């Protein structure tokens, strides 16, 4: 397995506070990785740095050997980094199908076209329909994204990122805010898509049952640093993780928490 993404001592500071503190983080080609850690550990911030929503104060981010630390979002997407969001981020007044189609138009560089009809581009709509089907959203193709249920919105958020055909997909709490019973089907859907396409994925997740059952490797963060890194079995037995993360009960979380 080769390294797909590597961060070297990245730092993100908010004022005096270091949300990400010299983190070395790696994703291997083809793996499904879980990023865990208590609220405020710096998981989302790390993903923001890698995806380009924030720029690192120090350190480097290498994607397939190229330094992307300072690259604009658009370039990182073109290179193959896509993400979903902890708080769902959709185009609420567009239909589910339009949401996905837009990602495809953008990926194909077609959003620059202003004198051709979007609806006439059959291959794009075919692909968008297929993507929705993969994520079991085909019944809601025509529904405005704003009118979907929370679980469907989370799936659509992932579907949009997936439609960009990334090599590396960051999923920031893909099941947050959905009922316990809905979690497994959502994760099943996402992980099966990711695995069948050979996409590498880094999934931020709080539910340890979900983490242990779906991931090849687990990285635990704590207070802006990496606490542990290993296979599910190793992490289960890791003293530091047990005491800092799993041993202590999680603080109650609002249905949509964090940044």
């Amino acid at each position, binding site marked *: 397995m080769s390294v797909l993404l590597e961060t070297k001592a990245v730092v993100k500071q908010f004022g005096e506070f270091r949300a990400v503190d010299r983190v070395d983080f790696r994703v291997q080609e083809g793996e499904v990785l879980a990023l865990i850690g208590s609220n405020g550990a710096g998981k989302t911030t790390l993903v923001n740095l890698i995806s380009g929503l924030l720029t690192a104060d120090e350190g480097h981010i290498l994607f397939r050997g190229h330094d992307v630390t300072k690259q604009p979002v658009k370039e990182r997407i073109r290179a193959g980094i896509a993400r979903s969001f902890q708080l769902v981020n959709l185009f609420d007044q*567009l239909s589910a199908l*339009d949401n996905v189609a837009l990602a495809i138009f953008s990926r194909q560089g077609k*959003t620059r076209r*202003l004198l051709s009809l979007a609806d006439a581009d059959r291959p794009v709509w075919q*692909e968008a329909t297929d993507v929705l089907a993969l994520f079991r959203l085909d019944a809601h193709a025509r529904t405005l994204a704003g009118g979907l249920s929370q679980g469907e919105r989370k799936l659509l958020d992932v579907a949009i990122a997936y439609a960009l055909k990334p090599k590396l997909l960051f999923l920031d709490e893909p099941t947050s805010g959905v009922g316990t019973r809905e979690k497994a089907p959502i994760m099943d859907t996402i992980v099966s898509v990711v695995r069948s396409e050979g996409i590498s994925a880094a999934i931020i997740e709080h539910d340890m049952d979900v983490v242990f059952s779906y991931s090849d490797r687990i990285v635990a963060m704590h207070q802006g640093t990496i606490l542990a890194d290993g296979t599910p079995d190793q992490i289960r037995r890791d003293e530091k993780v047990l005491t800092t993360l799993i041993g202590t009960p999680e603080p109650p979380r609002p249905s949509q928490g964090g940044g």
Partner: protein
Amino acid sequence: MSTVTTVVIPARSPIRRLWYAAPVLAVLLVLPWVAEQYQTILLAYGLVMAIAAIGFNLLLGYTGLLSFGHSAYFGVGAYAVALMVKYLGVVSMELHLLGAIAASVLVTAIFGIACVRYTRIFFSILTMALSQVLWSLAFKFFWVTGGTDGLRVPTPTLLGVVTGKGDKTAFLVHQYYYYVLGVFLVCVAIMWVIVNSPFGRALQAIRDNETRAQFVGIPIWRYRWVAFMLSGVFTGVAGALWVPLNGLTTPDILHWTFSGKIVFMAVLGGFRTFVGPIVGAVVYNYLESYAVGYTVYWQLFLGVILVVLVLSLPTGIVGTAERLMARRRGPR
């Protein structure tokens, strides 16, 4: 991809909508032959404002940016024409339109660079401030612009052959009316394609969620800038077409209150729909003309009517009509 599914054809069937347009077009075509001259001229004004309003609405309805400075581009179009006549002696309406397009591209390109970095109220205020700069320049350089007196503009030559020599009213009611109608239809067609293009979808995506638009790879500032220019150019074309009707350009059309009228037209007709601003522009134009005719307190009168209309029809005339029609077709 392994899953086999059938293509879902997007629900908005554009062709069906054209059927609704056919009777309206027929009315527009025969109007000069059946209506009073005054009515036809009013409608010509309405169509001109409709072009400005659809341009404006590319920003408000589709990109989510409320410009309070579209008077600037309307004025740039109009003054471009007046100055072409004054300094270059150009009388061809086609050249006037080209000149107005060139001038509004230039001005919007520059203003746009400053404005598109902002959204919401900051965008609105900046666009308004910039338009006020142009307004005050029109006074300052009175030897060029004629100051408050404005610039008188004779009737142009249409398509190199039709001139307005002789009966000016007859010219405006017939030849010029059809000319405006023709340009209006071309503008509507182009704008319709733009809002339904992949680019138009990208604008709507930016409107709905800027961050996510960025994360599907859309360069938001650049796209907003292009939308800003397109929007201003349509409004500039409207300004150029307005000149022969009015016969005179004055700085009022650069004043922010004129921008306010354009905003009102879009909101009145319904900025969430494509045809809303067109309907709004025509209706507003009638309302204003009749209000002026009936009472000296026309601004107050008009203000009250507009407040009542907006309160009772929050989605605008077209939005409300669509809802009523959907209800009549029965629950779906």
